């Protein structure tokens, strides 16, 4: 697969009739969605709605029961997850999954491009990679902690390291699983700045988020999942003002 840059609004990833069951539980049912270039899509929905499962299915980390996922017009069936990652699909994890015993620098290094592995890369290429990594660490505020082990970082720093890794991948599509949960207001502002800059720079984002302030602040589009079904998909205000969805999201109190 070659990397191309589709125009704004063109579909990068097209998901059709995605299904997945675990035993008798239907985790994802007949979900179809387009992830379009330059658009920030937020997945909302109660816990257990199938949001993370949806990520796992479209990255190929989990085998789907049926349905089709295309990336840049090509079917991803049978494509190994690492191939899809190389083709431009990056993700973060809710539980971060940092390489805890490794330094900040090494964590980011592991996320950089690996096309030629294990062959050595050219000096110029290596210099370019180092500059890119330094840039990413400066933006996430981790440059002074580059030799610190991931496990010794504070909570917010760990969240930013997870972001730094996906920034270093140069992926076109970012699948972010609750990247801002638990952040203090300052860190949260920093996170929004980073995200806005990268979206302006051409990155397409699909983000799982519970905090509705964040959702409204950054989304172009909201997809509402409940019990594996896509109940609504559209303009943030319309989706969030739907009383039926609010009832599902907040429970009967609302």
């Amino acid at each position, binding site marked *: 697969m070659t990397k191309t840059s589709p125009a704004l609004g063109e579909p990068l990833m097209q998901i059709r009739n995605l299904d997945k069951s675990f035993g008798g539980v239907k985790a994802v049912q007949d979900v179809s969605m387009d992830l379009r270039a330059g658009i920030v899509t937020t997945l909302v929905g109660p816990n257990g709605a199938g949001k993370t499962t949806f990520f796992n299915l479209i*990255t190929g*980390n989990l085998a789907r029961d049926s349905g089709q996922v295309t990336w840049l017009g090509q079917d991803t069936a049978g494509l*190994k*997850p*690492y*191939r899809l*990652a*190389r083709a431009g699909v*990056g*993700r973060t994890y809710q539980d971060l*999954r940092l*390489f*805890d*015993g*490794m330094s900040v620098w*090494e964590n980011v*290094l*592991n*996320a*950089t*491009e*690996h*096309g030629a*592995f*294990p062959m*050595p*890369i050219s000096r110029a290429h290596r210099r370019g990679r180092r500059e890119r990594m330094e840039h990413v660490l400066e933006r996430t505020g981790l440059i002074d902690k580059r030799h610190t082990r991931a496990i010794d970082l504070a909570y917010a720093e760990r969240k930013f390291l997870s972001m730094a*890794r996906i920034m270093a*991948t140069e992926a076109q599509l970012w699948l972010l699983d609750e990247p801002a949960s638990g952040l203090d207001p300052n860190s949260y502002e920093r996170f929004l700045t980073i995200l806005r800059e990268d979206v302006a720079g051409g990155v397409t984002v699909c983000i799982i988020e519970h905090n509705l302030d964040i959702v409204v602040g950054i989304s172009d589009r909201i997809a509402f999942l409940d019990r594996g079904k896509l109940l609504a998909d559209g303009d943030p205000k319309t989706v969030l003002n739907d009383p039926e969805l609010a009832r599902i999201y907040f429970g009967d109190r609302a």
Partner: protein
Amino acid sequence: MLAIQLAITGLQTGALYALTAVGFSLIFGSTRIFHFAHGATFVIAAYLFYWVYGTGWGLVPGVLAATLGAVLFGLVLDRLVYVPIQRHEGSFFTVFVASFGVGIAVQNVIGMIFGRGFTSVSTPLSRSAEIIPGVYVSPLAWIAMLCTALLLGALHFFLRRTHTGTALRALADDPELVRTFGLNPRRIAATAFVVGSALVVPAAIITSATTGLNPTIGHHVMLISLAATIVGGIGSISGTMLAGLLLGLAESLALLVVDSQWTEAVTFAILFAFIIIRPSGLLGRIAAH
């Protein structure tokens, strides 16, 4: 004087144990494949050297043949045995039995070709010189220690300072995760097999020129590698290295008190002591679960 003599011999043995064990530890630590045939890698390398050097083709071709044989064996075994087993959700036990079987097959083939008895290579460096009264050391002892120090230093640099080495540690940490970053886990695993198998070569060659070879030596090598990996702390390369040295020294110094046929029991005694008193090993982290 005897104690000094035994200590030096022990360091020589321990240095070679360290190399072999670190090779196993590297493969096991990063791929979680219980590569029991690591002992067979040792036997193949040793006999290839014995054959090429013994035929009179010289030292460099001998070393090259041994290295090539060891690396190819590791790679082919990974490709033809471990990869298919893992593809079918193979359990730890299946891998172990398959690997064990390959080890026995190699031992038998070597036995058929070279005979079952002891053989050894005689080199000009094998002759011992009296360094202080009553203490005899062959140049090979110094070469063994130097070789180990250089190679383990290089390995440390590789794992800590290069992109490839970092990826190897990443695989050990979270094999699922490396894929998210576009790394092919199979290729990293193959790299671990290349490096891990190559590390046994100096040990195999020096052993062929000192204590000598027989086809069953692979079992002893494997026992030591396994013991050193556990005593050192699973996943800790430095721990494995120290444990290798410790086991070599202990095995040699034990001769002060017991007869030579009991030395393997000393290895086990140390192993059990660690399992009971310090199960995480010398430098290992205690598992979280």
